[in-house]
């Protein structure tokens, strides 16, 4: 190939390559996609005052809520409840009158005080928060092995468990009756002696 022809060929190649490079077509619907993206990014177009308005509104609402909640918490009458809470002495179940010493309680004037105190304590009993009695409401604790066995037995054989319980109750009642009766044998032996 002549040098001139070769250069002409190269020019043609370069022209074609450059033209092809510049003629890239986008996928169909590029304009729609761009408009959709612009609408999705609408926060760019929102006026500043609107955004700041929302921020201020949210902040003010939050502050008002916090203040209101704090005020509500403070306005709850805590002091009377604290006074009526049982002291360690109260927790043991003793009445205020019982706290007075025996000498003081026997004095007529003191007896009147005791009555007044008892009346007061009776009136305030409904408002008082009494501690839960452990014998009535035992604290939840896992059952022992024997208790578990018993519970399982009752669950598996409820009728037999009832029968056994009844039989035991009858037996205990019978024992109590026998214990309550006088013992003729022992009396006679005593007389014999």
């Amino acid at each position, binding site marked *: 190939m002549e040098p001139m022809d070769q250069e002409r060929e190269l020019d043609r190649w370069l022209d074609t*390559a*450059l033209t092809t*490079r*510049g003629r*890239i077509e*986008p996928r169909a619907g*590029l*304009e729609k996609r761009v408009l959709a993206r612009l609408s999705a990014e*609408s926060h*760019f177009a929102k006026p500043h005052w609107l955004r700041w308005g929302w921020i201020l509104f949210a902040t003010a609402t939050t502050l008002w809520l916090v203040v209101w909640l704090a005020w509500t918490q403070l306005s709850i009458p805590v002091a009377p409840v604290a006074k009526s809470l049982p002291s360690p002495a109260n927790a043991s179940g003793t009445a205020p009158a019982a706290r007075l010493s025996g000498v003081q309680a026997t004095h007529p004037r003191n007896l009147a005080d005791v009555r007044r105190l008892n009346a007061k304590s009776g009136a305030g009993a409904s408002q008082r928060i009494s501690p839960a009695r452990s014998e009535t409401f035992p604290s939840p604790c896992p059952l022992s092995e024997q208790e578990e066995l018993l519970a399982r037995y009752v669950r598996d054989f409820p009728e037999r468990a009832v029968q056994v319980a009844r039989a035991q109750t009858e037996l205990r009642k019978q024992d109590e009756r026998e214990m309550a009766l006088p013992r003729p044998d022992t009396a006679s032996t005593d007389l014999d002696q």
Partner: protein
Amino acid sequence: MTAESVMASEALGLAQHEQDLVETLVLDHSRLVYRIACSVLRNETDAEDATQETFLRALRYRKKLARIQDPKAWLARIAWRVAVERHENKIRAADADPPDDTLVSPVAGADRLLLEEERGALLDRLLSALPEELRDPLVLLTLEEMSPREVGLVLDISEAAVRSRAFRARQILRERLLALTSPRK
């Protein structure tokens, strides 16, 4: 005006004249913006992302759109900046290898390099080896929508500089191509 564009403008919170301007910009120039982005990024997905980013940036100036003298050159300039930024970030992220100096595959011969399917890849490699100030005017001039004046506005150089730089770039490309196709000694 289509229902979609009405919905879009409502979502954007634009006034009627602003909405018309934005829509006109998108409809008239989105293809040019895409081609500019693609000429830099050489990837369709990246180019589309860059196109959308270009219009998002343009939307920030929606109040001044009516006063812009040459919206096409203005958009082209934004698109060019967006594409170049993305390209640089991509290179930085990928820690790309420097361009191959030899430009010749040890397997493929010069004739094979001139085949149609490899033309684009070869041109990209040749262009990437060019100095930036020569490459950019040539790349933008290959886009059929861009005149030398508009390329000058995008690159912030005079029209004469655009022409001379593009001519020099083209000469360098020819020489390198000639060196590739000529038989080795």
